[in-house]
């Protein structure tokens, strides 16, 4: 579920923090910059794992702050393909079942990947699995708050960086294509329901 990502970045420490140890200031700045943020094609950053190398710090003319190039490793949430995860159903919509992991919400199970046959109950706004046995059909509802197990099938990263003023017209048409505005979403077929205790 979690991977370690090696990154390099230049960290700016303002002069009023010079009394603190460099390691602590750098760690705090990195966490401030990356925690709970999605890095394009990498994943959702959780927290700093460690600092591998600190290069020399420079002070540039006109700016009193020090700039340090840092090599560090960050803990990132990035499930691999076909990984099994357990999450809670956040809600259902005609697009599919929305699942949340608490810290990560944008997981969608499209209707094609649900156990067939499944149909969407408009009145209650839930997806229902019609399980056929010899006795008759049992309707298994996907209620909100239920824990389910699912396998990751696909992920999509959307570059949500702001566009410049010149290319505004060209960019607006291409950004409409991905409906999901979330920078990182997972698509997953539903596997089984965790047995209710």
């Amino acid at each position: 579920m979690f991977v370690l990502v090696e990154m390099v970045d230049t960290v700016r420490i303002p002069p009023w923090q010079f009394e603190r140890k460099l390691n602590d200031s750098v760690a705090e700045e990195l966490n401030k910059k990356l925690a709970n943020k999605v890095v394009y094609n990498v994943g959702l950053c959780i927290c700093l794992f460690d600092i591998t190398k600190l290069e020399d710090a420079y002070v540039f003319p006109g700016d009193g702050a020090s700039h340090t190039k840092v090599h560090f490793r960050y803990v990132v949430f990035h499930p691999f393909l076909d990984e099994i995860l357990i999450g809670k159903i956040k809600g259902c919509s005609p697009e599919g079942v929305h699942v949340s992991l608490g810290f990560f919400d944008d997981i969608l199970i499209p209707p094609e990947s649900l156990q067939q046959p499944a149909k969407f109950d408009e009145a209650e706004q839930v997806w229902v699995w019609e399980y056929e046995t010899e006795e008759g059909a049992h309707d298994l509802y996907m209620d909100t708050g239920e824990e389910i197990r699912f396998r990751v099938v696909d992920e999509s990263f959307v570059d949500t960086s702001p566009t410049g003023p010149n290319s505004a017209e060209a960019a607006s048409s291409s950004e409409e294509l991905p409906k999901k505005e979330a920078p990182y979403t997972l698509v997953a077929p539903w596997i089984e329901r965790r047995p209710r205790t």
Partner: protein
Amino acid sequence: MEVKDANAALLSNYEVYQLLTDLKEQRKESGKNKHSAGQQNLNAITYETLKYISKTPCRNQSPAIVQEFLTAMKSHKLTKAEKLQLLNHRPMTAVEIQLMVEESEERLTEEQIEALLHTVTSILPAGPEDEQSKSTSNDVAMEEEDPA
């Protein structure tokens, strides 16, 4: 900012749990230094992730247990990803093993699946919710293993 290696290492849920609890301790000790907007993100994500992992069986693991589990797994010839999934989820039924291990019908016989289940449940400690429902689910587990 540059990403040197987007997949340097895989982390088990237990390692992340350990890291986050240590981080929380450190920040509590150093007092209320900065509850500014920057720290709020870190607080939010660590709280949510800790909450999620605390509900899984990884909470009760320790480095010794993980080591023991990995040495026991050597004989079963599983890929790294499969071993990681077994470690994170602690499957208790054959169905779960079939999901996590690719082509398990071809690679493992039924006795091997049973042996694998037994190794997993004996070495890895149960999760917090499993402990509560242990008495009720025991009967269910017995019935599921019989038809095998």
